[in-house]
């Protein structure tokens, strides 16, 4: 297979899979948010993602014994296994297995990333595609917010920046790892052009994150900043950041209107989390199955919740979501996967070049920040397959092979 085609496929896969929430209009009208993308546009995006993942997967045929792939295989195997076992016992098998097909593609694309990262053309394509694609997304979002267009989207979200995503929270969740990764590239870049591209993307992403008024996103952003500073040895500044995060939470609790939230949203998260824990208690071993939460939700809805909680896709906490969807067995496998991934990353971090260390610290901080956002949002199975698979693969590849000088 042509190396350029392989590089393009892996780069597009990495950019597009992180934006999975853009694909929501495929399911038709939803009770949440006001989608900007049409259903046709979302289908085209999904098709391009599937093609890219298939091309990337095809490149793995003769590479399953590759050293890098061998390092990532047990991690992705444990995570995919957790989803498959939960899928077998799903209360909504059709939905779970449709998702599992995409999760398998995501695992294949992630393994291909690990295999081909050490080839400079592939790493270069991935870094630039991610930064340029991200820059377009953050610039469009800022333009939409400043011009209040489309009016329906601006009004439905109380003026909170949403970009092409369906809700401000989804946009904020995507922004946190992008902001962290772009900052890492800006700090590590050797060429002026790449530094400018990454710094521009990071700056616009930071403005967008502020404009989302997403409390979870803000907390995630603060956590990412803290983690990056901590891992890069700036611990006093990190402590200052922690104080800012505490202040943000206090503001939100005292007056939700200041952060453009409705009064009725104030306790929605607590009720959702209570319902999620009830679900996990009813189906503790393998959960209700990936993306099957809404099917069993009426059994556990908190009676005194507001009408906003009449239906629910997830319990608004990524850990409880994983527990409810994959059970204790799934959660144990997921934690074991992270332990294996963490060991490989820490091993590589200790012997990496300063540039690679900066990149690893920032990207890992972005994922840690997104996990903190997940304390009050995000769907566990989606997070696992579409964010943790590719980002863990990237971190493992970086830790193992570093980054070729010509990429930066």
């Amino acid at each position, binding site marked *: 297979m042509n190396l350029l085609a392989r590089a393009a496929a892996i780069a597009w896969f990495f950019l597009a899979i992180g934006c999975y929430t853009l694909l929501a209009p495929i399911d038709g009208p939803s009770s949440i948010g006001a989608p900007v993308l049409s259903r046709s546009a979302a289908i085209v995006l999904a098709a391009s993602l599937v093609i890219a993942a298939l091309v990337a997967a095809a490149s793995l045929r003769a590479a399953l014994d590759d050293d890098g792939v061998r390092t990532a295989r047990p991690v992705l195997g444990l995570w995919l296994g957790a989803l498959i076992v939960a899928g077998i016992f799903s209360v909504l098998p059709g939905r779970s297995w449709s998702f599992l097909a995409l999760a398998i593609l995501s695992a294949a694309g992630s393994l291909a990333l690990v295999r081909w990262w050490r080839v400079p053309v592939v790493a270069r394509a991935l870094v630039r595609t991610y930064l340029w694609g991200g820059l377009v997304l953050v610039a469009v979002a800022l333009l939409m917010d400043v011009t209040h267009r489309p009016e329906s989207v601006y009004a439905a979200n109380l003026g909170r920046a949403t970009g092409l995503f369906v809700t401000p929270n989804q946009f904020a969740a995507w922004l946190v790892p992008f902001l962290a990764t772009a900052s890492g590239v800006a700090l590590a870049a050797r060429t002026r052009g790449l530094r400018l591209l990454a710094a521009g993307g990071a700056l616009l992403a930071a403005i967008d994150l502020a404009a989302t008024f997403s409390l979870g996103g803000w907390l995630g952003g603060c956590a990412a900043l803290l983690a990056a500073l901590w891992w890069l040895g700036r611990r006093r500044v990190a402590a200052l950041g922690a104080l800012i995060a505490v202040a943000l939470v206090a503001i939100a609790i005292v007056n939700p209107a200041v952060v453009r939230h409705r009064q009725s949203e104030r306790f929605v998260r607590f009720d959702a989390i209570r319902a999620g824990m009830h679900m996990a208690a009813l189906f503790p071993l393998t959960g209700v199955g990936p993306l099957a939460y809404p099917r069993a939700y009426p059994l556990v809805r908190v009676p005194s919740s507001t*009408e906003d909680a009449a239906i629910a896709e997830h319990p608004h906490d990524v850990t409880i979501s994983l527990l409810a969807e994959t059970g204790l067995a799934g959660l144990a496998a997921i934690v074991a996967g992270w332990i294996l991934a963490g060991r490989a990353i820490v091993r590589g971090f200790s012997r990496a070049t300063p540039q690679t260390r900066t990149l690893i610290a920032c990207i890992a901080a972005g994922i840690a920040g997104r996990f903190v956002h997940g304390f009050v949002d995000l769907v566990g199975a989606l997070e696992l397959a579409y964010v943790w698979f590719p980002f863990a693969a990237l971190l493992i590849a970086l830790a193992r092979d570093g980054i070729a000088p010509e990429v930066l």
Partner: protein
Amino acid sequence: MLRIATALGVLVAVVAAIVQVTSYALLGSVAAQPSVPALFTAAWPFDLFADTGLARVPAVRRELARAALLRGEPARAATLLDGAGTGDAAEDLRGRLAAATNDPGDAVQHFGRAGDIVQARVLIDAIAERDPAGALRLAVAFDRATARRDVPAAVIAQSDWHEGELAAAVAAQSPATSAALVRESLAKYEAAAHLDPTQDAYGLSVGFEAIVAGDAARSRDAYAHVAAVDPQSVDAVTGLAVADALTGACGPARDAFARAQALATHNQRTLDPAASGYGIAAQEALRRCLAPEPPR
């Protein structure tokens, strides 16, 4: 150490498996067909819990009652709910049982005590289609029942607002009692807006209903509050224009209407920029204010 950890892990897995299989048996009917959980659906846990005495535990009784209702066995559910406690979950299940046995009056009482506006709305809305006055009586009963428990303010606000809507709908159908119902509707909308000032819908309802009640000054206050919270709200600014016109303040009415028209082009949430939903008197007052002044 490793052996102890392994033994604990196995024990947790076995207990989790037993709980999960029991849940499949009791609640497996919520699963899609065909699916593994649906295959396990059975009645054995009812006997097992009764024989082992675990059915005396209120939390277990509630889960068994929930399963009985899901399986369409109201008699079994009624027996289990006797002694299932008095918390929100138990009251909610009693409400579902009453709804399943066609006793909507009793159902809304229990839903009210549980604060379950979602189930109450399903019941009341179904009745409102054929009997709005009956639905209003149920909404009032629900509202009173919520007052007896520590129900979240946002739920009470939603309940008040829906009661106001039902009262307004009944008022529109029965001219003989309409004045009292309009007052009742307005009071409920105001209660909702007071409890949750961030919901535009509540304030807009107060503004509109105050005009129906003939109180333009009260309407103006309500619309001004919504416009202060959400300056992009075309409906609030249009309402301000109508309220000003009714009080004879044609200058402010013209300004507000012009602002509403300008905002309307940027705001697709607009419901009624031309104020055509207001009564004839209000539309006439606005028309008079907007008419070009005769040359002097």
